[in-house]
């Protein structure tokens, strides 16, 4: 049996190719050091996944959570406006760090996947099992399609300014269509107490949230309804416009967060910390 055939499953996946050996030769790492670098990579991947799941979810939950959580808040006026504006921030920052330092065009998609994973774990474990809201009431938004577009645009153009001008508007404009298939059933019109409502509205009326009474539900409150079928696109284009500038800002924030900078240490504390000089 040849050596390659006798390798374990993981051995085959992670085996070193001739190209890898060349790279190690250039950077001056021996085999053991390369193993340590790979070990470091696995720890960082696990830490990054947990970090983005937690921090991104907190950000969305407390700045746009109502529209993300509830099916009857997913209207044509605020939902396609607020969610893209709110959710482009973390993908832009993470893209900046991943692309600038590692040339990895996966930052935005990673954020999208982390958000959806953490939202669903919380939704099922607490909203459904603990407080017994039905899953049909708590359907989260999906931003993964827009995130993939951001990463693809970055991969093609290789400049963040192009992602800001092309990718960010696409992120906002594809948000509503990419969620449409999952939500179509909820937009079916039904008769409720003699008035027309959507299926999503009826679900919201049926399962009351004690602390979110109907009068504070923020949906379609302006005159945008008079635009009828085009109202969602008016919101989408507005979101696209804002997303351009927010992407630029958050790319810079991502760069700032991932930059190594230090404050000078006081000589007295340095002495306590074991520095002689």
């Amino acid at each position: 049996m040849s050596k390659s055939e006798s390798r374990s499953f993981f051995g085959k996946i992670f085996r070193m190719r001739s190209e890898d050996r060349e790279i190690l030769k250039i950077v001056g790492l021996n085999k053991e050091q390369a193993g340590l670098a790979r070990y470091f990579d696995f720890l960082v991947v696990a830490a990054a996944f947990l970090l983005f799941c937690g921090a991104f979810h907190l950000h969305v939950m407390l700045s746009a959570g109502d529209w993300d959580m509830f099916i009857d808040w997913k209207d044509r006026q605020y939902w396609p406006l607020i969610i893209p504006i709110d959710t482009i921030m973390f993908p832009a920052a993470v893209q900046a760090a991943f692309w600038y330092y590692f040339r990895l065009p996966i930052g935005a998609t990673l954020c999208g996947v982390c958000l959806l994973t953490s939202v669903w774990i919380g939704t099922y474990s607490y909203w459904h099992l603990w407080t017994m809201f039905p899953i049909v009431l708590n359907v989260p938004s999906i931003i993964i399609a827009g995130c993939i577009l951001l990463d693809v645009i970055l991969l093609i153009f290789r400049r963040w300014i192009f992602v800001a001008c092309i990718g960010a508007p696409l992120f906002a404009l594809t948000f509503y269509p990419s969620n449409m298939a999952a939500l179509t059933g909820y937009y079916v019109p039904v008769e409720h107490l003699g008035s027309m409502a959507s299926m999503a509205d009826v679900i919201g009326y049926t399962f009351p949230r004690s602390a979110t009474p109907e009068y504070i539900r923020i949906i379609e409150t302006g005159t945008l309804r008079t635009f009828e079928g085009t109202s969602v696109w008016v919101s989408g284009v507005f979101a696209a416009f804002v997303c351009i500038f927010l992407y630029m800002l958050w790319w810079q924030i991502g760069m700032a967060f991932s930059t190594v900078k230090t404050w000078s240490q006081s000589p007295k504390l340095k002495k306590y910390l074991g520095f002689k000089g």
Partner: protein
Amino acid sequence: MAFIDNIIHGKGLKKSVNSEKYSNDKLPWYTKTTVFKYGNFGIFMFGIIVVAALVAGARIYQGLYGFEHGLDSMSQGFQDYWMTLVKAELIGIFSFNVVLWLYLWYSRERDMDNVKPEVELKRYINLVLWILSYTFIVYWTTSYFAYADGAWHQTVLRDTSFTPSHNILFYGCIPLYLTFGVGGFLYAMTRLPSFGRAISIAYTFAVLGPALILPNLGFNEWGHAYWMTEEIFSHPLHWGFVVLGWNALAIGGVLMQIVIGMSKSFKKINSKFADNSNSEFTENL
């Protein structure tokens, strides 16, 4: 110490590895793996398992006693089941934190100018393990139990700041992520020359930002008690948590600092072995 060694290395394994009568061929296969050679992987995994057990215990406790004793803060059941828990969490976790942080300070490196690159390398990996442990509890806090808080406050009108969801989220999880956040920061400052020589701005933000969520709770509770009784998640009252949570992204800067430090350690080690093929250094770790 023998008990801790057994947890980290397996029963009697450290002794047998260091014994001269064992040649390299006779050692178990896993003693030759990178995970075994570098960093204290075992003790960090032990810490993560303990945190996971606490998280599972908290979820079960909320399920059992949330609705049974958590609806009326004036009831005796609430005092017994929920206020006792808060006191136990605050006293228990902060006591542990003080002991751990003092241990890290008193066991600090006393000669930072002469830390061997092999030792430095091992400490960098330990620092990444501190960060992994930190992000593990950060996830449970900022996503899992924060969402639980949302579910609870949509369902039950609060009559106290010490609700069943808050008692786990704010007084259990946040002190627990301070354990790992501040612990890792102290570990880096007291053992790694590159972190001790000057204060890392990224690490300061990554620890201080999420830590300030605890005092920001005062504003949140004040707002809910006197100003906003309904629950709008995206209300500006909650934005303090959001802005402080952004600081967790500064972990990226800390990891970049670690990468730079590890590269320098590799170069120092390789300068000893000109042919760049010697694996002797790993056996001395």
